[in-house]
């Protein structure tokens, strides 16, 4: 049932999309989109609702199959093997955590090691919980509904990391949290990312969050890439009015909060 873990640990764990187009019945979600994530870096997909950013992210774990274009994972087409085998090697955190409500925290976190047939999934889960700052001794036996929102997202993050994937996909992982909790969990994630060196694709509508967590930002609008670059690039050389507006709005929000 579970394939042995044949990881190619030395290959560059880069993600790449080339010429990806996705059509739904009534609209085009992605139009000829290309992007790369270099090994060990974080790229943020930024855009508003309907921009196609979540669809793009879901192409990478084959939750969405593009109508055109190629998705590669470490240089290999994602369609090379069964979807389940790909997904077990890619961490994933959705907006609401997606924890299995009928499983205790430890079992939730041990899910992917269990699917991979690792010898001791629980040990992997204990280690992952430690990483996100939730000691298994205290939290392992709780059910998800017995946790706070921030704790649930940390558990979801631990679950995504438990099998030590080289790539993780985060879909608005902090979007449903209150501001203080969000800052806290963002901080925890930023520290982790640096220490683990995991390649990350992050979807967010919050430019400030993208700036804080990502090495590079890709702005999507109506299914097309508007601009890509560092925050400085976007600020100093916006290529479109939309990007300029996005940047100035984020700056205005920050200024409003800045001490006078």
């Amino acid at each position: 049932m579970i394939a042995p873990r044949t990881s190619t640990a030395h290959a560059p764990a880069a993600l790449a999309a080339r010429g990806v187009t996705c059509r739904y019945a009534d609209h085009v979600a992605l139009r000829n989109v290309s992007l790369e994530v270099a090994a060990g870096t974080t790229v943020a997909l930024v855009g508003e609702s309907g921009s196609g950013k979540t669809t793009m992210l879901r192409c990478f774990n084959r939750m969405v199959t593009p109508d055109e274009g190629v998705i590669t994972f470490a240089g290999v087409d994602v369609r090379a093997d069964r979807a389940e085998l790909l997904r077990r090697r890619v961490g994933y955190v959705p907006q609401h955590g997606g924890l299995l409500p009928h499983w205790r925290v430890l079992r939730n976190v041990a899910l992917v090691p269990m699917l991979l047939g690792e010898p001791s999934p629980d040990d992997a889960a204990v280690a992952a919980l430690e990483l996100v700052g939730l000691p298994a001794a205290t939290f392992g036996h709780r059910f998800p509904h017995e946790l706070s929102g921030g704790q649930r997202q940390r558990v979801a993050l631990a679950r995504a990391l438990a099998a030590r994937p080289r790539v993780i996909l985060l879909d608005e992982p902090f979007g449903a949290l209150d501001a203080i909790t969000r800052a806290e969990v963002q901080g925890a994630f930023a520290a982790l990312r640096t220490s683990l060196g995991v390649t990350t694709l992050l979807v967010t509508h919050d430019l400030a969050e993208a700036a804080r967590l990502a090495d590079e930002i890709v702005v999507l609008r109506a299914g097309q890439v508007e601009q890509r670059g560092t925050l400085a690039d976007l600020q100093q050389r916006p290529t479109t009015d939309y990007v300029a507006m996005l940047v100035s709005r984020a700056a205005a929000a920050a200024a409003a909060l800045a001490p006078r």
Partner: protein
Amino acid sequence: MMMSLRRAALLAVALFAPRATLHAQPAGMRSTRPIVVASKPFGESYLLCEMFAQLLESRGIAVDRRPGLGATELAFGALRRDAIDVYPEYTGTGLVAVLHDTLTDSLAADPRRVFDQVSRHSAERFGVHWLPPLGFQNTYAIAVTRQTAARLHLRTLSDLARESAHLTAGFTADFIGRPDGLAGLRRVYGLVPRAVRPLAPAVKYQALASGAVDVVDGYSTDGMLARYDLVTLVDDRHFFPPYEAAAVVAPAIARTRPDVLGVLGLLSGRLDEVTMRALNRRIEVDGVPVATVAADALRALGLMPTGSRGSDVASATASRPSLLAYAWGERRTLAALTMRHLALVAASLFAAILVAVPLGLALERRRPLAEPIIRALGVIQTVPSIALLAFMIPVLGVGVAPALVALWLYALFPIVRGTYSGVRDADPDAVEAAEALGMTARQRLLMVRLPLAAAPIMAGIRTAAVITVGTATLAAFIGAGGLGEPIVAGLALADSRMVLSGALPAAALALLVDGVLALAERRVMPAHRRH
């Protein structure tokens, strides 16, 4: 899980087995199958059925009793397809309700000609054989209380028609629907009551005595007519055909078992109306068990050796024991009926779960099909059980098989509905994450979706179980036994103790089954919702 299901199946099989051998022949008898002796659900039919059965047994012919079959259509439908072998029927009913022949004046005047025509047409069309009549008629007796008759000067049906605009009728559903019933009275006599209440046979006399209705349809040999001191109105225009009672025999037995025809023929011409009224009265008014009355009657006719035992209740006296005493006396029978009831419920429910849960899951993957199919299953719920059972006779005959299929059909809907909506609505975020993290479809189903849908699935199963316990009482109408047997018989024999001796255990069983399933539900409930 699988283990316990298999055990349940074995248990169900084990529970059916004893019944199958209940009426088996004693060793040493001929190894032909038992003769299935049936009746319709009213007192006199039960009595004649029992007399046929005891007579055959006394001549070494094994019988299987299936009294109380739904009504004319069910009984005759089963007979002509050899699902039952013999039951008592009436020539007028055969003529009008079975053959749908019209009643001419010359026929109406001569019972002999009615019998000749009915027996000839039955043989030609169905291969069904009418034995020579038993010797008495049991015609419809349109009856009023003595006070009503005196007050309105009622003697004939013509008198009744004159006053009918002021009167409320309480007629059995059978009578309201038959061509030789209400419709004919309206046509021939112009009888149009102010209102017509459909009443069960068991309650119509009480309704008349209490003044709730003014006129009822009775049977001329009914024991109740005398008990309530009623006046039977004269059929002055000879509207009702002659209703001579006779044994009708299924095609296969009529062809192959002359011995059976010979034994049953011993009763031909031996019973007159006075005798029948007295026998019916012993059953319906005095509460003497049918088996006792039947045995006594056969002995009085010299058809049974005087020392022979009618049945194990032959010692019962004419005094009516209380409900508790009655139930205690019948405890063995009631326990067997309860086990059988439970077996019917368990087998049909088990089969329904096996089909409905996978069907609900399949429909969740083909949602455009789901609502139409579930709605179609819902429509089955609206088919009256009797009608559903009647539809099945051509395919499955009478007995356990059609009852199981009917119960199974009724149980599907709540389980499919619960499974479908349960799985459809199971925490979409969790199901999506499970997929995105690499669970296969099968793992998602078994480890996530089914556990999360456990509550609505179990709710569907519990609903189906309670419905099935209730509906299974109707299995008695098709000879499948169970707690419906004393209910149907009690209604037919106007014996409320007998009705309650079936109805109370059935109600207790419904509560018990629901309680047991509630415990099972706690076991399968996802862990986070157990508290």
